[in-house]
């Protein structure tokens, strides 16, 4: 088990979304556009980032910690965004 998670690569997906009370101008514009296009019932549209990383080898625990850090420091702005990290072996 350990050998596997070390040798193979990883695939990480970081999803960055705006905090609930932060305005999302993009989402608003798309919501309006959908309305104008006749799509009914859209209550809200929010746009976030979907970031896929492929990573070679390494220890899963260490890597996860590193990715958490990166997600907070570089990939998202904690002032206004939340992130969700999903890490999978075998990328």
């Amino acid at each position: 088990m350990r050998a596997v998670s070390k040798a193979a690569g990883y695939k990480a997906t970081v999803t960055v979304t705006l905090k609930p009370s932060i305005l999302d101008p993009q989402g608003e514009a798309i919501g309006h556009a959908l309305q104008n296009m006749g799509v009914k019932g859209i209550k809200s549209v929010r746009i976030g980032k979907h970031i896929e990383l492929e990573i070679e080898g390494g220890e899963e625990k260490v890597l996860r910690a590193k990715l958490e850090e990166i997600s907070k420091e570089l990939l998202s702005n904690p002032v206004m965004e939340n992130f969700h990290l999903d890490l999978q072996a075998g990328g």
Partner: protein
Amino acid sequence: MKAKEFALTLGLSAGEYDQIEKGMGREPNENEIGMFSVMWSEHCSYKNTRRELRKFPTTGPAVLVKAGEENAGVVDAGDGLALAYKIESHNHPSAVEPFQGAATGVGGILRDIFTMGARPVAFMDSLRFGRPEAKGDDGKRTRSLIKGVVSGISHYGNCVGVPTIGGELVFDQAYDGNPLVNVFCLGTLRHDQIRRGAAKGVGNPVFYVGAKTGRDGLAGAAFASRDLTEESKADRPAVQVGDPFVGKLLFEACLELYARPDLVVGVQDMGAAGLTCSTCETASRGGSGIEIELDLVPQRETGMTPYEILLSESQERMLIIVHKGREAELKEIFARWGLDAAEIGTVTETGRVVVKEGGKVVADVPARILADDAPVYEREAKVPAKLAERQKLDLRKILPAKPKVREDLLKLATSPATGSRRWVWNQYDHMVGLRTVVRPGGDAAVLRVEKPGGGWVHVAMTLDGNGRWCAQDPREGSKALVAEACRNLACAGAVPLGLTDNLNYGNPHDPEIFWTLREGVEGMAEACRFFDLPVTGGNVSLYNQSPAGPIHPTPVVGVVGKVEEGVRLVPGILGKGGGVVLLLGTQESGGLGASLYLQEIHGVLAGKLGKVNLKAEKELHQLMRSVLKLKGVRAVHDVGEGGILWALAEMTFGEESGGAEVEIPCGSNERPEEALFGEGAGRILLEVDEEAVTGIEGLAKEAGVGCYRLGKTGGDIFVIRCGVVKEKWAGKELKDLFHNSLPKVLE
């Protein structure tokens, strides 16, 4: 929590609370305390600085709307054309979220301008950060702040289709952790289009237009009125997000609305303190009252409390009062632009701002108390203990025995502090609108503006600040700023019409900081009076300090002027060659006190500026404008930071520019470095045709201004002689360093 305790947690003082209770005649409720906390914050009330601001000259034949009357000042540019302009800071928001902080700063100043009835036609930005080349985390943070702020301005400005045509970018450790982001906007209008922010006519409907209200930037005005600390980060929900798309629609819709005859009574943007500020200010100006129902306010989020709605700083919103019976016209226009427009209340005769929620009164405050009765403080002022020490300068201890001018200039060309700012203004659309006649990169930007009756007026503008000068001598430093700004305009042949200022300082409760501010204001006021330059408005940003200490005292001025008839605009860079280099002004350099040279090359901030000779400056500017009407002037550049050598070098940095060979006068008891890099005296460099020299000399003689022939242009080497110094640089050597220094650290 008791009312008073709550007031204290919002930053009001005990004395202020007592004054509120007395004015109200009862204990204020939570909503009312919230309203006072923002309206009586420094940001909205200028309680610590109002006495100082009164020292500015504010009147003059060209002034159409005075400082303090409305959202922005307005001056007459002749032929029925008027100019509305103002500068505003967004320092604290940009420190916390550089991209959105800067973007919303642009959005905010934009609203101030179109609120006046003007079409916004240009932005400028004045930016100050720590050193981007610093090692470790400091440098990293600074670089990301710079990139964030520049892209935030670019994002908002480009999207709304208003060109950003100039500004400044300064790196100094003094701004580490507390960047300065000041944004200027200019708008144009006809005299008869000036709009007022007054609520008049009892029974007239009050409209809310623009974006919906959310919990954005709750109490941002209060936030801007405190020191930046670690705790500021806990203030993070205060971040506001700008929507330039809606910003653009909003100003187009408003301009269309204003164009309808006799429709609009009053307009006020919702900036700091949002709904609270706009209702009480319009009521106070109109000598009336306003009653609104919060349930009618368009809301983006559910479950917002009255407190939140009243204090929200959601962007892209305006309050508009129209004549009763004309509601449908407003609604039709805003619907066409796809914007919310809700009738939320009416103008009353009570003199009170009454806020209801579901028909129930949740706040009821006399408008005047809220808007105009904020306390005014006379803060204690004390000469900084270390000032005299800092002003000492012993060049013998600093300069090497033998001048190293060749290395010095290479170092200047390499430093991000002095490098080309193209990296910045390339990211700004500086051409949209087809008005930009002189693009960024020169002394002053020039716009052509259509006259009401057809034809163009050329308007020149510049932003200038200098924390180093003001740190070393607050009074002379701010005088020098005004002189420099006017000199920049003179290089574009323009007569200054008006000035707007942004006073960026630290905590005013510190007597040394307050003294510095007062000196700065008085110096600026004196210079303005001398140049017949009315101060038509501005902004104060205090509490600019981080745990490392306060920023340099940094007043920033924006000066707007009109290019004189008959002036030919010339570039700031040399052509291919064959011209003569002239110096207008004085042969004196003003010395190395507080100079960029000492700071960049020797790492020393010491000494002070020479005393500013306002009379000589004024004569120089007049001469410059006359010279620009002659034939044969090829290039003009004023001598500023870095002194005459740096100014000359900059002239050779044009893509096509050739070199020059010049001799710079060196006084007998002066070090060549002083002559070459001293930045304390007002001077202007020219490249002219040989045939033009006599004419210029004649004009200079008449004006009583010095005119000196320094050398000639051509070749691709830059050669200088000054006393014992003789040096040369291959043209491309300096040019490449200059153009690459900023991208190199930032990319």
